[in-house]
């Protein structure tokens, strides 16, 4: 009985959605074009996902899986057009097999191609060890590239403004207090994260201040994230009311 009522709710909602769209197209509020059908599809997907707020249902699951599939297809196509085609196909494969181009093939690109193919051997039982060469290349490259850049961008560039003079002339008393607070916050947070020393006495008191700074930061991050998600929600409601139903102008 309960299953039947759920089925009727689902069919009724889909029927209502179809009727609304027929009315919107017949009244000319939605153009009879690919863009018009796109708006209907977008609205349908949006409503199907929001239906999860009522409870888990087949419409939500279908859209969820469809989204995963479309995202996967999109990633493959974008990888081809943005990376593999300009970096591998055009400079290596085309000059090798096409007589129309005068460019010489860049044979050095065979090395990353082989490394890429080695990675696919992860699925072979006998040859999966070859994928380690690729992982070693990528991991070693990432480690080497990151060391000097992290030192420069995330350590030196972050320490510099933390050691800004409190009174260098021209600033207000509030900005001087803020400079001091930032320095206190950075030092106390760093001390809080030193776990090789017992947090007792002076260290304990400073690390306690660090916890307060961290709590304020976590609260601020939480508030910021909520507002970011709400702005997305407002965007979706605007889409439904403006682009689809045409209620908002």
């Amino acid at each position, binding site marked *: 009985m309960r299953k039947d009522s759920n089925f009727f709710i689902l069919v009724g909602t889909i029927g209502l959605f179809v009727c609304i769209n027929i009315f919107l197209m017949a009244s000319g509020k939605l153009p009879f074009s690919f863009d018009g059908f796109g*708006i209907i599809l977008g609205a349908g*997907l*949006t409503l199907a996902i929001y239906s999860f707020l009522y409870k888990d249902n087949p419409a939500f*699951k279908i*859209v969820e899986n*469809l*989204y*995963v*599939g*479309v*995202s996967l*297809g999109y990633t*493959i196509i974008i*990888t081809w*057009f943005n*990376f*593999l*085609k300009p*970096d*591998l196909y055009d400079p290596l494969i085309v000059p090798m097999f096409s007589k129309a181009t005068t460019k010489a093939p860049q044979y050095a*690109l065979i090395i*990353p191609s082989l*490394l*890429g193919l080695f990675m696919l051997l992860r699925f072979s039982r006998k040859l999966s*060890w070859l994928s380690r*060469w690729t992982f*070693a*290349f*990528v991991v070693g*490259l990432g*480690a*080497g*590239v990151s*060391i*000097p850049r*992290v030192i420069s961008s*995330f*350590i030196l560039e*972050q320490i510099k403004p933390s050691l800004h003079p409190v009174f260098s002339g021209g600033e207000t008393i509030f900005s001087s207090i803020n400079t001091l*607070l*930032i*320095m*206190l*916050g*950075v*030092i106390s947070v*760093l001390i809080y*994260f030193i776990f090789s020393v017992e947090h007792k006495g002076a260290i304990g008191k400073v690390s306690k201040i*660090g916890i307060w*700074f*961290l709590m*304020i*930061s976590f*609260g601020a991050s939480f*508030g*910021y994230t909520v*507002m970011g*998600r709400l702005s*997305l*929600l407002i965007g979706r409601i605007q889409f439904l009311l403006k682009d689809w139903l045409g209620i908002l102008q």
Partner: protein
Amino acid sequence: MNFLKRTVPLIIAFVMGVLMAMQYYVPHKLSQDLLEVVSRWDRIIAGFAVFIGAYSLFHLHWTRIKRKVEGWGYSVFVYFGAIITLIFGFLNGGKFFWNDKQEGTMFDWLYSYVQVPAGATIFSILAFFIASAAYRTFRARTNESTVLLIAAVIVMLGRVPIGNYISHYIPAVADWIMAVPNLAAKRGILLGVSLGAIATSLKIILGIERSYLGGGD
């Protein structure tokens, strides 16, 4: 054989790590060219890595369909979405995939009317879950949790017109929280994370950290 399976990867990681770390300090054209070439190679390898992800996802859903596990019918829509997108992507508006990407094709239509609305809606739905989780877990039991709660409320109110309506100071205090205590804590965390990243990178280059090699022989 053990040399090829275990030692060669460690040599590759060491050589690449040292070479790229040194490259940063050599302001010569050759050094810049090396970075460009190696970055290009990295992009090509990343391109191949996408196919591993695709295979894993297809394999997972194919297994669900084959074994007819509960809800297997939904996995068909993963294939449907992926195949439709791939067909339109490779058709490339009639110019096919070996030519440059064309604008205004069915692939772009799918992006605009399926990918973007579904992605934005899924992320926006998190607003409800975050709010509901916060209602259930946020309790001003200790001084620290009270500080977290107050900071969150001020930042949220400071970002909407009602905050300014309640008091003109709320947006200013929200900005101050973001610019001073939040910045100080984030900077402290970033410094710690950076030192950790450098230590891990050094361990990888020197062969102390070998987890990326995986198990087995």
